[in-house]
C-alpha cells in the first residue's frame, strides 16, 4: 500500500478529485495548505508572498493503483497555456509517494489489506 501526497492548485482540485472518483479511487483526504516551491513564492513589487494557497490531497492506494493515480493527478492538475503546450506552468504542484505499513479501519477495528478497487 502506498500513500500519495499531492500538492496542487486550488483551482484544479475539484477536477482532480472528480477524475480520481471516476477511476474508482474514492478515498482521499483534502487539506487546505499554504507553501512555496523552489521559486520561493511570488514577489509583487516590494511585497514577497511566501505562503501561496494550495490544496493537498492525501490518498492511500494499493501498489497496483499508484501509476494510474499519479497519471490522473498529473493530467488534471497540469495547466496548459499557449506558451507552454507540453509543460505546465510553474506552481502546478508536486506529487510525493511514500509507503504505508498498516491500515486499520476504525469502524471494524480490522486491518485493511485491500483497497476498494482490489475487490
Amino acid at each position, binding site marked *: 500500500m502506498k500513500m500519495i501526497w499531492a500538492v496542487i492548485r486550488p483551482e484544479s482540485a475539484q477536477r482532480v478529485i472528480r477524475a480520481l472518483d471516476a477511476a474508482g479511487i474514492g478515498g482521499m483526504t483534502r487539506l487546505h495548505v*499554504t*507553501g*512555496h*516551491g523552489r521559486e520561493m513564492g511570488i514577489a509583487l513589487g516590494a511585497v514577497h508572498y511566501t505562503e501561496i494557497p494550495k490544496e493537498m490531497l492525501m490518498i492511500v492506494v494499493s501498489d497496483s493503483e499508484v501509476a494510474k493515480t499519479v497519471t490522473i493527478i498529473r493530467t488534471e492538475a497540469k495547466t496548459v497555456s499557449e506558451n507552454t503546450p507540453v509543460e*505546465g506552468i510553474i506552481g502546478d*504542484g*508536486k506529487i510525493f509517494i511514500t509507503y504505508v505499513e498498516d491500515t486499520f479501519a476504525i469502524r471494524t477495528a480490522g486491518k485493511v489489506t485491500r483497497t476498494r478497487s482490489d475487490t
Partner: protein
Amino acid sequence: MKQIIALIREEQVEATKAALEKVGVRGVTFLYATGHGRQKGYVSARELAGSSLNRNMRMQLESVLPGGEQTDPGTNGAPVPADAELAFGFLPKRMIILVVYNEEVNRVVQAIVNANQTGRYGDGRIFICPMISAIRVRTGEQGNNALS
C-alpha cells in the same frame, strides 16, 4: 528522499522560514494545526501573561477565560497564581512539511531545531519519514530531479 514533518510554535514560523532558506530548502508546505504533547496542553499562567503569545492564541484564551482574566474554571473564578498551570487542551501550532534529499536531512533538522528551541515545553516535534518518489506535475520529472 525523506519527508520532514515539523510541528512548531506559531510565533517561530517566520524565523523557521528564514532558517530553511538559509540552508537551501526551497519547497515548503504549511498547515495550521492544533494539538498537544505530553503536557496535555498545559500552559503556565506566567507564559500566558507574557508577550510571546500570538493573537490567535490570545483570542482562544479569552474565549476560555471569562473576562480575559487569568482564572481557572476549576477554582470558581478565583485568580490563578502566576506559576499555576492552566489546562488549555489543543494549542494552535504550525505544521511544516518538506521533502529533502537524504543527505540534507541532518542539516535541515538542525536548522529547524536552532530556529525553534526555547527550552520550554511546546517547542514542537520533528518527524522524519521515508519518501519513495516525487513527481513534478508541470513537467513530469521524477525522483530527485523533481526536487532540484
